């Protein structure tokens, strides 16, 4: 079959000639909603109030299941927040990243798990420890098929 290639690549209306249209001319009623248009909801506005101090991390392990931080979940870590008693924190403990619940009792600080299977870890001078940030949010994929915990 033979066809003229030019005809396909160029619709006849758009020739090289210039059409004297300046602006589209409107007819009919203007949209009554036009005045009420708002920008769409952007989840980062809600989840990440401090983008310059926020980092993402992926969780590996099940020691925080009771506080809704499960294996393979994404957590949002905000370094600008002040870690307080009961916060879920990300810390470095002997050179690895850990997420635990921070328990502060007077001058004593303990890392507590959100799972009774794991004993609390006291923070002493013997181990290298540093608070890295506060986990402000956990993102769990509901399509993973783990809606009900097996335990």
């Amino acid at each position, binding site marked *: 079959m033979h066809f003229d290639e030019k005809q396909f690549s160029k619709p006849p209306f758009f020739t090289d000639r210039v059409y004297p249209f300046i602006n589209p001319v409107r007819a009919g009623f203007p949209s009554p909603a036009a005045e009420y248009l708002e920008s769409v909801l952007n989840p980062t506005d809600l989840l990440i109030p*401090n983008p*310059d*101090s926020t*980092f*993402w*991390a*992926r*969780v*590996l*392990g*099940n*020691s*925080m299941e009771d506080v809704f*931080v499960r*294996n393979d979940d*994404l*957590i949002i870590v905000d*370094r*600008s927040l002040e870690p307080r008693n009961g916060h879920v924190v*990300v810390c*470095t403990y*002997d*050179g*690895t*990243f*850990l*997420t*635990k619940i921070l328990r502060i009792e007077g001058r004593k600080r303990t890392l507590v*798990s959100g799972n009774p299977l794991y004993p609390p870890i006291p923070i002493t001078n013997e181990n*290298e420890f*540093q608070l*890295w940030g506060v986990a402000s949010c956990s993102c769990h994929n509901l399509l993973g098929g783990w809606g009900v915990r097996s335990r």
Partner: protein
Amino acid sequence: MKTNSSFGVWPHVAAIIYSEGGVFGLVDCNSFYCSCERLFRPELRTRPVVVLSNNDGCVISRSKEAKEFGIQMGEPAFLRKDFFAANNITVFSSNYALYGDLSRRVMNELSHFSPDVEVYSIDEAFLGFSGFPKDTLPAIAKRIYKKIPKNTGIPVSVGMGPTKTLAKLANHLAKKKDEYRGIYIIDSEESREAALKQVSVADIWGIGPAYARKLEAVGITNAWEFAKANKHWIRKHLTVVGARIAYELNSIECSSLVTVDPAKKTISVARSFSSMKDTREALEGAVATFASAAAYNLRKQKGYTNLIRVFVHTNQHRSDLEQYGCNTIVPLPVQMQDTIKIVRYALHGLRKIYKRGLQYKKAGVILDQIRLESDQQNDLFDNFNRDRDEKISEAMDKINARYGKSKVKLAVASKQNAWSLRQENLSPRYTTRWQDIPIVLS
């Protein structure tokens, strides 16, 4: 050389110091690239770390511990390879996606401390504090010093002074001397004198090795002596550049903040190859890739180029091979900004200087005489399909912005083995790629 008494040459100085006038801060990230890598590798926090330049060529960032091993800035990495391994020094290839993102965070955080921020380089920024009451500055410096590392993970040092040169000098002291704990503020004649006396002329901002030698030859060894030196002598031997530095050291402001990004007059993209290239096709691929990257950057700043330079050279470290290096200038008939035409002219330049039978190590493309869009003037005899070419470039930029860098490119830029970076120790892009975000154990 005989120097004049304290304010002998500038009698009016004493009156204007620390009264009106601005105060500048310089915030500098400590071992920036190393700090970026360490943020996501906590086990390296107290270990020696170095970061290598593009292509793993030489050392461009050293942690404090690595400096203590005597590793110098700019040392060729291949000479030190065994030394790094023997001393357990962790080596990283440069990860500009990571550094760029963390730099942006630091600069954004700095803008909370002053309305005037001049981003001076990837790891340092000048802050303007004019109008701030003088007694609030120490508290501000302390807050910057604490807040930036807390929020971004990058440690900084803070210098403040009545001119940019003094702020830079103060920062140098804050960083080098532990007793200042990362902060040095020049806010009185005493603190200025104490600072200048501690800094050697070679460490003054803007004094290069050549000027430093000249000054040391006449017995001027530290910044205090330089600031007091005869200004006519300085102007004669160190030109107006040296004089300006001397004025600034005496608290007379000669340069103000440049808070808007000035458009670049030249854009250059050049790389060493990971393995040497001898065919014209391989070099064409490299030059086309560099020209495409340069054209993209040109469009980003809405500029047009008038002149393209292309250069190639062989490996100077291989004395066993024939040496050659050449560059050429390709004047353009009309101003351009689109990839297709810039690549075409760059390749034209390459063909003029290419010599067969040599082992090439490096090539580069420089766009020169860049003007803004507003200066654009069409040539009467311009027979390019300007609209078409610019639309193609625009479409390429849009596709690449959406689907990843260099997803669409000119065929000549993707020639087999065109060029590739050697990045043997590249870290993950922890902050800019979902598959690279850090793992946290639970």
